[in-house]
């Protein structure tokens, strides 16, 4: 391939990367702006710092099932 061709090819690639710059920054901004909009909306809907249901449910549930356990074991485990 001749140098001229090479440069042409690079020019093409440069055009392409310029496109990517536009598309990429566009996508990044569109997505983050959309996120900002949704989060702002949500923060207005969500009641402020009411204890959420999960906070209440949590201690009862975590660890509960994954296996057959009797309470004694837990103490044993803590001693490791």
């Amino acid at each position, binding site marked *: 391939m001749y140098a001229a061709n090479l440069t042409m090819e690079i020019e093409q690639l440069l055009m392409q990367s310029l496109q990517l710059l536009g598309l990429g920054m566009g996508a990044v901004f569109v997505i983050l702006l959309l996120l900002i909009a949704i989060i702002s909306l949500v923060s207005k809907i969500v009641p402020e710092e009411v204890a959420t249901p999960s906070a209440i449910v949590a201690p009862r549930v975590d660890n509960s*099932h994954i296996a057959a356990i009797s309470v004694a074991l837990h103490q044993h485990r803590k001693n490791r």
Partner: protein
Amino acid sequence: MEQGLLQLWASTGLYNFTFGQLAMIAVGGGLIFLAINKGFEPLLLIPIGFGGILANIPIAGIAGPDGLLGILYSAGIETGVFPLLIFMGVGAMTDFGPLLARPSLMILGAAAQFGIFFTLFGAIAMNLVPGIEFSMADAAAIAIIGGADGPTAIYVGSRLAPDLLGAIAVAAYSYMALVPIIQPPIMKLLTTEEERQTRMTQLRKVSKLEKILFPLILLIVTILLLPSATPLVGMLCFGNLLKESGVVDRLSNTAQNELINIVTIFLGLSVGSKLAADKFLSAETLGILLLGMVAFSIGTAAGLVMGKIMYRLSGKTINPLIGAAGVSAVPMAARVANKIGLQANPQNFLLMHAMGPNVAGVIGSAVAAGVLLAIVG
């Protein structure tokens, strides 16, 4: 630029979504909601639900052969490695003491497996419904939901009916979470107030040596009679031996903590990858959900009936409520028995008495799984 924009647009989810995928993402979100908000088995249902969402994203192919979920699935579920490692961790967590203190109660854990085999029958019968077609292998995989034991259900499901695995796992864990709702009415229906008030004598202390010998005895019996159950039972026994031997605490601790946690994450995501729209959104899934409910109910009832028989035979010293714990769903079912017992008699603490049938139920359903794998598999 225009071409690039079109290419980018053609690669958006908006452009590529099918209705089924949207529906399945909603299902995944629903599972996560139930797990967080209602406390439905969150350790499994959050990973499964999230895996279901990831699996239904168009283009990304996360559940495909080169995607993360696909890779995890073929490495850990197709091979059976994940459920077996979970079973090892379960073994390392389980105290078989209550069972050893009063071994006769194991019979309750046997009776409750009736739920499995009755459901097998029901699943085959469901073929009469147009649009539903369950092979014998499908039916066996569905029936194991009645074992009320997650890893057993996933192990059998992945071996006999991988296409139904998503629905089977979701049904198994959902109903395990629903045990406090499903079981009480059946318990009250099948037992009398007098029966429920029965107080049980305290369990004897079990020696260390008995606890060490138990996993070895269990393994030997299974080897002699039902080798096809030994992958499951063997890993349960191995984990339990690590725990009870007392000389390898660092291995036992890892098996019941970090290792089981890592595998739980991977297993949940992999199982979720089977929540693909084309497999899940079908009449079969509805059938599976229905059959799972039947399986739990029949299992509970069978355990209770056996409990009532033992109540009579033992001269009213055994509370039949603990029969319901025989379905497994450890330790939820034992807690439910305890709670209903307390309602009948505020001095009536059944928890430890129910733990024996409860863990016997795990063994029972592993044995049932062995039978299904030996004959149907």
